[in-house]
């Protein structure tokens, strides 16, 4: 143990032996900076709830640029289309590979019973891919495309959750971290907003829907606790996005201009956009962890038990295979026995013929 070695930025109290493993987080930190982050966000909601705008305003970049004009005919064919778009963001040397998956046509057709299916399938596909990569041989460069967070946009007009919402959220709550949002909150006055949030919270409890909960911070981190409380109060978030920068009081802010006033989207009194952004960005790693430890593991165990257990066909196949193996083993054994016997016979023959020579050999 080299006492004289001075580790970086660590206070050394004289007289105590310093090991040096407290530097580990820094090392990890450096490694992760080098490696970069991967984050996938899924935005689900009816057309016109402002998904594109909100996502763009969370990250302050135009991630989803093409508002593909899906014609009505296609919409009515009840096809839910998922569009992933990837952006690489960098801030102070930290690279984030952000993927936003956009949905089109959700909840807009006449018969919406099949609408949740494509989305669930997409989530499962990502899990599958990761699972396959993990079980593979070369596990160095696994691309993590698993969905870490799902933003569910609820229309401000509806009171509580609609049957379609309930159905979807129940199916998806065990697979992904869900964050419900009240979209287009500029239709609601303050009282109405409070009422809506209450109704939503009540419905979430009533239908037993799993929603992402922020982890409780450490007791000593007061600042974190404060923000945590703030954010917790705002849930479910009421968001209103804007893509248009407007000059307001000298600053250029993202805002919406009405004939009766200008709505500053960043103002935390008016919308919860800031709170949402804070939560997502500050909890990014936590979201990833939960996805990896909880949802992915659930998926994995389900997948493995499924393949080993109940489905009849694979088991039969295995049984058949085992049978074949056993048969082949038996055959092998038989053949071995035969061989052994033959060998014995040969040896005996040899033995039978051998003593004649020995007597002759011994005479000489």
């Amino acid at each position: 143990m080299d006492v004289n070695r001075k580790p970086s930025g660590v206070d050394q109290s004289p007289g105590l032996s310093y090991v040096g493993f407290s530097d580990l987080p820094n090392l990890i930190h450096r490694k992760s900076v080098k490696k970069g982050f991967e984050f996938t966000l899924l935005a689900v909601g009816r057309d016109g709830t402002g998904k594109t705008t909100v996502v763009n305003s969370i990250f302050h970049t135009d991630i989803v640029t093409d508002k593909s004009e899906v014609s009505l005919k296609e919409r009515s064919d009840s096809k839910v289309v998922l569009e992933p778009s990837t952006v690489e963001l960098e801030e102070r040397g930290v690279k984030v590979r952000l993927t936003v998956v956009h949905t089109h046509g959700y909840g807009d057709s006449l018969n919406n019973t099949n609408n949740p299916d494509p989305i669930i399938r997409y989530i499962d596909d990502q899990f599958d891919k990761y699972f396959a990569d993990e079980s593979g041989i070369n596990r160095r460069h696994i691309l993590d495309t698993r969905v870490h967070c799902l933003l569910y946009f609820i229309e401000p007009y509806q009171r509580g959750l609609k049957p379609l919402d309930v159905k979807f959220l129940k199916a998806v709550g065990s697979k992904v971290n869900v964050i419900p949002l009240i979209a287009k909150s500029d239709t609601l006055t303050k009282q109405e907003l409070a009422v809506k949030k209450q109704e939503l919270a009540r419905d979430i409890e009533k239908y037993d829907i799993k929603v992402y909960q922020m982890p409780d911070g450490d007791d000593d981190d007061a600042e974190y606790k404060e923000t945590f409380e703030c954010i917790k109060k705002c849930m479910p978030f009421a968001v209103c996005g804007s893509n248009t920068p407007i000059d307001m009081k000298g600053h250029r802010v993202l805002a919406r201009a009405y004939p009766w006033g200008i709505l500053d989207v960043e103002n935390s009194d008016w919308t919860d956009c800031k709170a949402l952004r804070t939560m997502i960005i500050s909890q990014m790693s936590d979201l990833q962890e939960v996805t990896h430890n909880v949802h992915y593991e659930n998926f994995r165990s389900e997948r493995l038990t499924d393949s080993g257990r109940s489905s009849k066909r694979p088991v039969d196949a295995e049984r058949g295979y085992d049978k074949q193996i056993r048969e082949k083993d038996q055959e092998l054994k038989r053949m071995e026995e035969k061989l052994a016997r033959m060998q014995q016979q040969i040896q005996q023959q040899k033995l039978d013929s051998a003593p004649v020579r020995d007597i002759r050999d011994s005479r000489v």
Partner: protein
Amino acid sequence: MDRVPVIKHAARLRGRKSYVRRVHHTIRHRPQCFLLPSHPKVETPRGSHLLPFAKMPPAPNGNVVLPSLRRTYQAPTSLNGSSVNAASSGSSSPFTQFGRSNVGHFTHSGSPGPSPSLHSAPSSHAASPAPERAPTSSATLSAVPGKYNGYADLPNQIYRRTVRKGFALNLLVVGETGTGKSTFINSLFSSDIYDGKESLGISNRIGQTIQVEKTRVTLMEKGVQVRLTIVDVPGFGHYVDNSNTWNSVVAYIDKRYHEYLEREMSVKRNLESQLDDRVHCCLYFIAPNGHGLRPLDISAMKALGTKVNVIPVIGRADTLTSDECREFKEKIRRELKEHDIKLYDFPAENDPDADEEDELKPTRNGHSKEPNAKALLPFAVIGSNTFIENKDGRKVRGRKYPWGTVEIDNSDHCDFTVLRRLLLRIHLSDLMDVTDQVHYENYRCEYFNKQNGPNARSTVDGGAAKESQHHQRSPLAQLEAEQKDMDARITRMKTEMQTIFDQKVREKERKLEETEKDLEKKYGNWDRDYEASGSGWSRNAGSTSCKKKALGETFPNLYAILQDELLRSNASDTNSSSGSPSNTAQLGTTMLKKSTKSKKSFLEKNFL
């Protein structure tokens, strides 16, 4: 006489002598009807029964009774002195007096033309209400004689009747939950029709299936009563599977039409006493998502557009900025056109009461001052029935946000005022008319077609069905059909006649054959016998004796008779000269003789 010029004039006007008498008759009562070709247009403001005449120009010859109203009669006092007085002292009925006075007036002037004489009279007359006669009724009515008849009061009569009877307005409000329908209705009629719905919670109202709910209120404004029925569809678009949610709405509308149809077709009907129950207008609320119409909206509006007047409305429009609103409206208009959805057509505006409603400022959509209804479709509305203070300090109806206050009565903010004006103030009667004349008639036609199709022998609807069928077909098609009918009939008749003719011919032929057979039977034997006998009784000379013989054989009796008769005739010839043929036997013999003679001659002729 004096009346002659009048009569002549009237006769010239009418050109009929028979009419003259009538004219003559009526002149007594209403001279002004036929004297003047025109009368000035009288403006009658609404309201009071007595006011209309206040606006009329003062009569130059004093207060004159209008025959239609039987008001106070104020006889022209200083008109032509004595004759008038004589007339006025006469009968109690004002009209005749007036008539006579006028006639008297004619006598005085003696001029042929009626109008100049009338006009000349006023000049001599002081146009003041007669001081010696106090008006018996409170209203002093003045009119130019011969210039006002009272027809102009007819709209007022209808107006009064409508006010007395009241009318019914049925609105259907359709749209997804939360698009602001109830609030809008409350603010439209400035009263809490839907109240406490917030507290109820919509989840309580929405059941397993779509239900149509009716709310009925009676509103009164300025003495006019309206029975307002709002039909709501809670749970529209709420479920996971929303196909055919509009079926229950369409069924409701059809049911109202059906009820009206049955009432109309019944034997004893009281159409006037019962108010109209049919849906006059449907407000379709579109959610302001900014992306266009949803498939549910398209299908529902398509289905409803053919049944009822549909007005598309964007609810909760305070979520859209001006630019977004404009784009959204354009998109919707495009899609409506693309899918060929029938909406209510606002008729061309002629605004009679431009008194209260101001000059319209340019609206949110940057349109010109006049609210061109079609350009503003679909109307972007905001609803609110609570009064708040806006930044000027005024109490307005609106919604208060931290970043500003929306006023619903401000046309810059939304199209609420425009929609209210068009819906309630201007086109209300047109909506009712279109419902009655177009949608209801369509339903009726469809209904009768359905009736006619499956059971063609329905007696009740048969005549009506045919009528409706005829109404439905275009004239050309009708003509063709008739032509075909005629042709068919003609060919049928032809074939019938042909068959009959054939039958008759065949019958005739048969009969002829029979007679031929008979004759052959009768006389054919003769030939055979003759031939059988071989000689005599043939045409040839040699065969006559054969014939005779043959005849003798066939008619042995005849031959015997002939012989006897010959003998007897020879014998009687001698007797006949002496005796008289009184004896019947002798008569008989003479007759027999004659007959035998004739027979003989016949036989000889034919067979010799």
